[in-house]
Each structure stands twice: as C-alpha cells, then as structure tokens.
C-alpha cells in the first residue's frame, strides 16, 4: 500500500519535473507567482546562506517568485542545467566555468559575481621549504585542475618560475597529505579547506600565498541565467537579484540566524565551521568593487583579467566576448546603496 503510494508520488514528482522543462519560469497561477529554481554549485552550506535566508524570510515570495533551491554535487555542471532550462538560475563555479561554457557555445549569461576576489589561496608549512612563490620550483604542489591550476601557473610565471618545473598534481578531497607533510603546497578555499588546515596545523604555522598579491584575480561563484531568460523575462531576473541581495544583507546583519537556517537544513554540519565560512564568504563578497558598488557587482576589469588568463593558457580557444557573457544591466538597476552592506 505504502509502496504504491510512493510510486504514485514519485511519478507525480517526475511529471512535475518534466513539466518544468524549458518553462520552469512560466506563470503558475493567476496570482502572478512565478515558479523558478536556483541550482547551487555545491551542497547546502553557509557559502549560500543569503539565498536560504531570502527563501526562509519570504523575500522571493514578496518579489512574486516561488523559488526552489536545488543543491549541486560532483559531476553536476550548473551551466549545463541552466542552459537546458532544467534550472532557471544557477550559482555556478565562477568566471572560469562561465568562460568555458561560453567558449563551447552554451547560451548562459552571468548576471552577478558573488566572490569578488580569488576565493582560494596556496598554503605551505612555515617550517617547510616553501617560503615564497619562487620556492614552488621543484616542490610537490596539489591544486584543482578546474582553473586554480592556471592561477598557479600565472603566479609562477610572474616570478620567472617555469610552471613545468614544479610537480603539480590534481588535489583530492582531503588535505591530510598536506597536514602530514607529504606535499609542500596545497590549494585551499578561504571558507572551507583553510578552516580544516587551520584546525589541524595551526594558523600560525602556515604561509599563505594570495593570487591577488601576484596580480592575478579569479572572481568565482557567478550567478547565471540562460540567454532566453535574460531576454524574455528581464523583470524576473531583476526581482530574483533584488530578493537575493536582500537575503544576503540580512544574513550578514544577523549571522547567527543565518547559520540557524543552514543548520536546520543540514543538521550534520559543524556549526563552528559554518560560522567561519560565512565570515570568510562575507570578506570575499564585499571585496574590491563590491565595497563601493555593492553585492554581486560585476567588476569587468577583474573578470577581464581572468578571461585573458584562460585564453593565454589555451583553456578557451579565444577570449570570450565579455559584454555578451557578463550582463551587468540587471544588477545595475538596483541602486548601490541598496546593495552595499
């Protein structure tokens, strides 16, 4: 009996899912509430707190959007899901993944940049052999081959070290090999891996190498929509951004409550780690141009430098047309004072 009910429920759910194809943003009822979904780049965590706060507090409802937040996962490419219309909005990997998608001809547009600075740093042991970027030569380094490797190459080239002279390996999930000193340099996002490394090695025993110090910038965590949504429903995009900005401001104004909301959805998370994450995410989101122009500002200069970097290393066949890939008209409609913290 129970089984049959579940089968039916599953079929119903699947039917709704199918219906959502390509028209997930179609008006759902006479009350002019629009169904839409946001696909995150990863599982529920404080990195996405603002969206969850906006949802919990009904900010999306106030803007007439019935939003569903879908978490991401490994092997799920947000650009793909947004380009096919399976999801309306996406918080995708970053400028790197947007460029790669545009280079492949995927019709996605970035409507806002969340992390204004490179969110990851390279870390070495203070008592180890790597004290400055020049020391990376001949050392064992692990990094992510999804863009971070090119940031590393650029940093090395700037100080005259041939990237090929370093032993650069793909980085696995765990930072344990670094903690155990099996490798010399590890890549760490400021909001996640760095927390684990700080806990296990001690903050004072680490050297941090910041890409911006080498003049390399790689903004990440980009909000994207399909070209179709951008041209056919500009007001939906604008309303989504307004509610999201409001949610993020609320999350930063009341961090404890924001963490409560996240912990309610994912109770097995480590609260202290999530609090650290929110603080770090805040630093990244209000850095650079966002300090004057507000959250989700698209800094064309920073984005452009990432564009050149990727083209230089042959990741994309040629520099992408920035104005087509990054549309700041939606976020610019919201006055700066509303977006600033």
């Amino acid at each position, binding site marked *: 009996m129970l089984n049959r009910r579940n089968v039916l*429920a599953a079929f119903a759910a699947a039917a709704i*899912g199918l219906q959502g194809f390509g028209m997930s943003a179609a008006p759902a009822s006479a009350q002019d509430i629009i169904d839409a979904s946001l696909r995150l780049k990863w599982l529920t965590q404080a990195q996405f707190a603002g969206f969850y706060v906006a949802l919990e507090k009904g900010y999306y409802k106030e803007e007439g959007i019935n939003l569903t937040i879908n978490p*991401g996962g490994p092997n799920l490419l947000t650009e793909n899901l947004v380009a096919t219309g399976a999801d309306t909005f996406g918080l995708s990997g970053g400028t790197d993944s947007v460029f790669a998608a545009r280079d492949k001809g995927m019709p996605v547009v970035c409507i806002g940049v969340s992390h204004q600075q490179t969110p990851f740093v390279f870390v070495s042991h203070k008592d180890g052999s790597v004290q400055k970027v020049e020391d990376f030569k001949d050392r064992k380094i692990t990094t992510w081959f999804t863009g971070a490797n090119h940031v590393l190459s650029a940093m090395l080239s700037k100080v005259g070290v041939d990237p090929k002279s370093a032993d650069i390996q793909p980085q696995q999930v765990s930072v344990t090999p670094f903690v155990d000193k099996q490798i010399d340099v590890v890549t760490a996002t400021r909001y996640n891996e760095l927390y684990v490394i700080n806990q296990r090695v001690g903050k004072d025993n680490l050297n941090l190498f910041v890409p911006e110090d080498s003049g390399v910038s790689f903004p990440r965590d980009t909000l994207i929509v399909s070209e179709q949504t951008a041209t056919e429903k500009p007001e939906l995009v604008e309303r989504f951004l307004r509610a999201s900005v409001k949610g993020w401001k609320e999350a930063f104004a009341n961090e404890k409550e924001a963490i409560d909301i996240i912990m309610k959805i994912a109770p097995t998370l480590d609260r202290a780690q999530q609090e650290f994450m929110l603080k770090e995410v805040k630093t990244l989101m209000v850095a650079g141009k966002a300090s004057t122009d507000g959250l989700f500002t698209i800094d064309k200069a920073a984005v452009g430098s990432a564009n050149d970097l990727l083209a230089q290393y042959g990741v994309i066949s040629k520099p992408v047309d920035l104005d087509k890939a990054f549309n700041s008209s939606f976020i610019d409609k919201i006055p700066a004072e509303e977006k600033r913290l």
Partner: protein
Amino acid sequence: MSGIKASAASLPVFSTGRVYAAIKPILWLTLGLAVIEATVVLFEIRPYYLPRPSAIAANIVATPGAYISGLWRTVLETALGFVAGSVFGVAIAIVFHRWTLLRELFFPLFVVSQTIPVIAFGAVVVLWFGNTLFAKAVISFYISFLPVTVNTLLGFNSVDPRQVQLMRSFGAKDGQILRRIYLPAALPQLFVALKLASSLALVGAIVGEWFGDTTGLGVLLLQAMYNENVVGIWATIVVSACLGMGLYSLVALAERRIVFWGNEQ
C-alpha cells in the same frame, strides 16, 4: 563491522539453547566493537584514520533526525529501484528466453549499458528527471536489473527439456509451462540475483543522491567527505551498512519462505 558478523556466523556453532542463539550475533558485535575501541585507544590511532566506535555512535545520536530522514529517503529510493529492477529483470528474461532472436539482438546492448559508469549517467538523469525521488530510483533500477535478467535466464536454462515436452504433450499452453516449470525452476537462481540486486540498488540510490539533493544517506556521506568530517563519514557508513544488511536479510527471509525446497534439483 559486517565482516565481523559474517566471520562470527561462519564459526562452528556449539548450541547451548535458543537464548544463546538469539543473542550470539549481538554478543559478537559488542565484543568486536569493544576490541576496535580498545585498539584505537591503545595504539592512539588518530581519529582521521579511524575514529572510536563510541564517537561514531555519539555522532549519530547527536543529530538523529538527519540520519533517520536520510535513511528513510534512501530506503524509499532503494525499494522503488529494487522492485522496478527485479520486475523488469524477470520480464526481460522471459522475453529473451521466449524469443531468442530478441536476445541475440538486444542482450549485448544491455551488457554495454552496464559498462557506462553511473557517475557519467547520473548527470543526465538529473537533467531528465530533476531532483526527484524518482530520479534516484531510476539510477538504482539501472544498476540492479541486469543481474536479475542474467540469473533468471540461467535458471530457465536449467529446466529439463523433457519436462517441457511432457507438459506440451498434455496440451499445456506457453503461459502454463512458464508458471509451472520455468519460473519455479528459476527461483533459486533468481534469489541469488535478488540478493545481489538489493545491495546494488542501495549503491545506486546512494550514488544517485550525489547529484544534488538535500536528504539521504548519500548526501550525508558527501557532506561529511568534503568537510573532512571523518566521524560523520563513518557514521553514514555504519547506517548504510545496517540498511544493506537489513535489505539482504529481508530477501534471504523471503527466499527461505518461498524456495523452501532449497537449491537441490
């Protein structure tokens, strides 16, 4: 932990009554856990490598809601995928057995389908079915049906053709022969496959949950893995193992009830 239980089960049994038989697995399990706990403490194994069993238990008890709702969700996905996979597997076996041409045409395709890694296939399933329970059940179905088909076909082949000829000479129809001879003959083999499929379906459901979901054991596993929450990883492994053993025992119980004559021919 399942290894300990299995080795305990294979030990010679000196039966001293029913009570002992009933509590024996629990005794062995407790003893095994105590040994692990003592080993970890004595040799000062760092929690990143192997946390103490008591720490794992404490982790589950600290947020029971997450584990219970995760378990329930995964059970539903697994059950749906398992039942669909088993029914489809048997049905395809019947079709392939009845129409040999179809088997020659399509069986290789089925085998090829199993060589595609689920990880590659999962992203497509999410694209098609979204973040629904149904999508996870599809993955679970996908990796559980082939063993059922293969084993059922094997069971069908074990039927003595003279028995079938005898039935035919009495004017039995195809459906009757299927029900009276082929299916009963295939049952022992089928249950071997179902036991396999129950574990595979669970794996399918857990992997399916890695493609963007909010609840389920797979989500807990992924979250723990990427936050380097080793105790959390182990807690999820323990819960998944219990679920796997539970499903397996259910199928084994059904086997003992249905195939009461055992595997003898």
